[in-house]
């Protein structure tokens, strides 16, 4: 059998279910990868090996007596360190919460456990999820398994790196401006930000209430589908979560895109893209066409308004959440965080309310303009080839580093304002051997179609099967 750690999540689940591998063997395979690479990658903030071994043994015992029927039975998962688990550390990537141990557990963690998985580690992340590069001044920068000098993308930096480096089969990230899709793209893995309200945020550290989303990063679109099926759906403890029914997201994954219309933007998303990114995107579009998709050129509307409004909402809400700590202990934040939070306190309420009050009308107008023409919209996830950690270190004092860091999320942020489900999958590598992401967005609650397109692309190509050299060793 292939190295167990290199299986996809659905393959590993099948191996355990059919007893080709025990849950304990699967865990050990992941820990071998972690132990071999972690000193270089720095994707983990805490790990609970004893609990993991107990959970794996319990999964094997349950299976032996016929109880292991969950779709994620026996799988070791690790998550961005901002998902509360009663009694366990949840540092949120910060000094301020370095000893924070919540007394309750996030709904999404409970749902993954109910599906048979267990969480064995908390993963590195941008401080309070507040940058798109993955820099962290307190726990050290997470490093990209494809090239240690380059960014992992953020803010779910450890989630992307840990999935790529084969520490775990899937990891929860969170996405307020691109924080699932950026590390998915940068680490060559798959990730989906669901529709706003699709997944409960109870027990999840808030960054900006209006735009925060919970979602998975994993090896394949099918893996993401399984994870999303497990965590989506209304939660009485999160009254903002949608009551819309949750389909089985794996059910429609058949590789067939005949009759499906794929929108290819002629504006905004490809402006200023680096050549290798444009080339990979162009090839990706052809691959979708080869699966039967009809390509439609589109002009994406309202982008100026969306770019202005999304920035104001996330700034004002983050500023509000952090105002008290900014009064009491501003020195405990990294400079690029506390400086941005400080400026956020000057955003006028009228600007914030303008941005909020137009969100629904713009969404409906956007959908009427776009989703009567196409079923999904594709674009590069990140416009540039991945920069180095040094070039985007906003704490370095170089102003161009701040600009470069902010530019990383220019293609992802609009879909947070619109609340649309949006995935990122690997669509190739740049000349330096770093991954390039393909972004796929759909109509509200259209995750099934987004995943169908992502999965079909992975039927047509093998980019998602590539493994970083250091994980192969």
């Amino acid at each position, binding site marked *: 059998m292939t190295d167990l750690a290199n299986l996809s999540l659905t393959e590993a689940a099948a191996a355990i279910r059919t007893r080709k591998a025990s849950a304990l063997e699967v865990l050990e395979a992941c820990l071998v990868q972690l132990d071999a690479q972690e000193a270089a990658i720095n994707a983990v903030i805490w790990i609970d090996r004893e609990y993991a071994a107990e959970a794996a043994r319990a999964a094997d015992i349950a299976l032996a007596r016929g109880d292991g029927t969950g779709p994620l039975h026996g799988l070791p998962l690790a998550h961005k360190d901002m998902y509360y688990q009663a009694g366990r550390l949840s540092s949120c990537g910060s000094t301020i919460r370095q000893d924070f141990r919540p007394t309750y557990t996030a709904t999404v963690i409970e749902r993954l456990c109910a599906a048979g998985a267990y969480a064995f580690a908390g993963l590195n992340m941008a401080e309070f999820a507040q940058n798109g590069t993955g820099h962290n001044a307190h726990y050290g920068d997470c490093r990209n398994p494809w090239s240690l000098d380059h960014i992992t993308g953020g803010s779910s930096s450890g989630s992307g790196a840990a999935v790529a480096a084969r520490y775990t089969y899937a990891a929860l990230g969170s996405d307020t401006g691109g924080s699932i899709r950026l590390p998915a793209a940068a680490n060559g893995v798959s990730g989906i930000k669901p*529709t*706003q*309200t699709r997944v409960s945020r109870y027990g999840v550290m808030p960054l900006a209430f*209006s735009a925060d989303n919970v979602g998975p990063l994993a090896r394949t679109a099918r893996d993401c589908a399984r994870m999303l099926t497990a965590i989506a759906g209304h939660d009485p403890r999160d009254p*903002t979560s*949608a009551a*819309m029914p949750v389909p089985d997201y794996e059910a429609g994954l058949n590789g067939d895109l005949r009759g499906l219309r794929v929108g290819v933007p002629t504006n905004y998303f490809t402006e200023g893209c680096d050549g290798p990114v444009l080339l990979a995107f162009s090839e990706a579009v052809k691959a979708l066409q080869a699966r039967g998709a009809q390509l439609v050129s589109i002009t994406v509307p*309202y982008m*100026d*308004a969306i*770019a*202005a409004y999304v*920035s*104001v909402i996330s700034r004002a809400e983050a500023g509000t959440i952090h*105002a008290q700590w*900014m*009064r009491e202990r*501003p*020195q405990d*934040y990294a*400079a*690029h965080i*506390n*400086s*941005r939070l*400080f*400026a956020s*306190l*000057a*955003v006028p309420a009228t*600007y914030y309310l*303008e941005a*909020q*009050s*137009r*969100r*629904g*009308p*713009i*969404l*409906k*107008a956007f*959908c*009427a303009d*776009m*989703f*009567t*023409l196409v*079923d999904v919209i594709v674009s590069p996830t990140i416009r540039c080839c991945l920069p180095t950690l040094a070039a985007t270190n*906003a704490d370095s*004092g170089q*102003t161009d580093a*701040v600009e470069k860091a902010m530019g990383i999320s220019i293609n992802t942020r609009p879909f947070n304002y619109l*609340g649309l489900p949006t995935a990122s999958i690997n669509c190739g590598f740049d000349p330096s051997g770093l991954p390039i992401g393909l972004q796929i967005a759909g*109509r*509200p*609650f*259209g995750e099934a179609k987004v995943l169908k397109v992502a999965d079909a692309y992975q039927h047509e190509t093998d980019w998602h099967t590539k493994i970083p050299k250091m994980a192969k060793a």
Partner: protein
Amino acid sequence: MASDDFTSKTVEMIADWHGVAPPNDVALHMVSDLVKIIGQFEALRGSLRFEDEPSTFEAALVQAASIGVRE
């Protein structure tokens, strides 16, 4: 880039309204950068025509979910 006057007035306003002092020089740069947001909002004035709606964004998502759906 904003004028020094804009930056100093904004810093003063943040102190008055929130009781927070600039944590470092980078914060002053970030404050001066707010003029970009002002510019973005200025450029939008009068360009969008939407009726005010008694609706939440959550409701808008549900409404928009069926737009263009083909079965």
